[in-house]
């Protein structure tokens, strides 16, 4: 383990990049999941079809392919857009971090769509009737009745989605994101100890997964505190 000594700070900054990607992709993932679930539950047939296509496409293709497509694809797309305004521009570089964040949020968002849809369907009709009887508006019902009831139902599966998200950040290193994996590659170049360096990466990810698992367990306990008798 002596070889790792000089690399701890690099690993630390690498982990911060992982954390940053995780947080931004988590926000985007929830957004995509909610939009997808809303579209699936709506009466609009076009919205239903689009949402169904979204889940089929992103659940059926390998993650690495989506990341590569979004990274290289967006670079080409932006280049052609930029060339319309300024033909001098040869190539527009897309930061791998944003292409990657967007890609993994899209992928995991397609799984979250199904989770959220199921959770919204799990809200008891009686609760909604009660809200109507109290004279709540649709928005009030959504914020005070549907959301508090639905997030508890969604939480176990949502915890798994967060784990997929943190593990998928490792794939962004393929398109050159400067995270722990990338640090390991540099460290191997100078020390020649690939096993040690990759084990450190594994340990960092294991730490992140453990934190997420424990957080979800705590939240589940918190969510069930009022329904203890019912279960």
């Amino acid at each position, binding site marked *: 383990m002596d070889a790792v000594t000089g690399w701890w700070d690099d690993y630390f900054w690498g982990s911060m990049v992982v954390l940053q990607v995780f947080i931004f992709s988590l926000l985007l993932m929830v957004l995509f999941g909610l939009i997808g679930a809303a579209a699936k539950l709506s009466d609009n047939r076009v919205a239903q079809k689009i949402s169904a296509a979204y889940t*089929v*496409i992103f*659940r*059926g*293709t*390998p*993650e*690495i*392919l*989506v990341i*590569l*497509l979004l990274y*290289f*694809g967006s670079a*080409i*797309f932006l280049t*052609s857009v930029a060339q319309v305004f300024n033909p001098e521009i040869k190539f527009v570089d897309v930061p791998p971090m944003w292409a990657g964040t967007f890609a993994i949020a899209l992928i995991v968002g397609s799984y979250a769509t199904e989770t959220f849809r199921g959770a919204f369907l799990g809200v008891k009709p009686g609760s909604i009737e009660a809200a109507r009887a109290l004279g709540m508006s649709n928005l009030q019902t959504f914020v005070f009745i549907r959301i508090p009831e639905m997030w508890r139902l969604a939480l176990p599966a949502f915890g798994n989605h967060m*784990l997929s998200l943190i*593990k*998928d*950040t*490792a*794939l962004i*290193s*393929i398109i050159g994101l400067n995270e722990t*994996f990338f640090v*390991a590659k540099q460290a*191997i170049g100078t020390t*020649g*100890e*690939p*096993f*040690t*360096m*990759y*084990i450190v*990466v*594994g340990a960092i*990810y*294991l730490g992140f*997964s*453990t934190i997420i*698992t424990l957080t979800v367990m705590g939240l589940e306990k918190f969510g069930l505190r009022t329904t203890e008798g019912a279960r």
Partner: protein
Amino acid sequence: MIFDLSLIADSIPKMLAGIGITFQLMALSAFLGLILAVILLLMRISGKWYLSWPAQVHIYVFRGTPILVQIFIIYYGFPQFEFIRESIFWPILREPFGCAVVALSLNTGAYVSEILRGGVLGVDRGVLEAGSALGLSARHKFIYLTTPIAARLALPAYSNDFISLMKATSLASTITLMDMTGIARTIVAQTFAPYEIFISLAIIYMVLTWGIQKTFGRIEKYLSRYVKP
């Protein structure tokens, strides 16, 4: 931004040449992973701490780390040690294909054993009591009652994991293996036409996913043929 159709027509046969490797990786890892999963499951439900602990550690570690890290540790990491290079496993661990199979099997084994455990825990107690009343031993109850029912209960989740495994085989392209994704990345590096190549490859993978779903749907129907609707 115009789709080059002739390029797609050119490259699809090239990519399909790699489908064999994808299938080999998938079938071998699914088979070895299932064996490992059953072993891990038996270790976990054995009730003996010295068997159940190693199984739980394996599951925890392999579910908590990205599969890419696992592949890299096995392919790039293991050759760091002299004793691995001199061991009998070296012919397997020297080849990227062997490494990919080992990594994918260890990974999918951890996930599948959790799925199987869910199936075993879902078996109705009444059935096992009926078995006891008939005088079946614990082993016979496990083989004749728990196994068929648990297999049926676990199948929907298993089919999802099978699809994840199929998608994970594409990661073998990161350790120089020329599967469909590996070939696609080479073509893109030569032509720089990511849209055409990657989208057509995505469609190939989606067809595979669809096929797996249909196949498992049939198996599920067959296994639940005597279940009351």
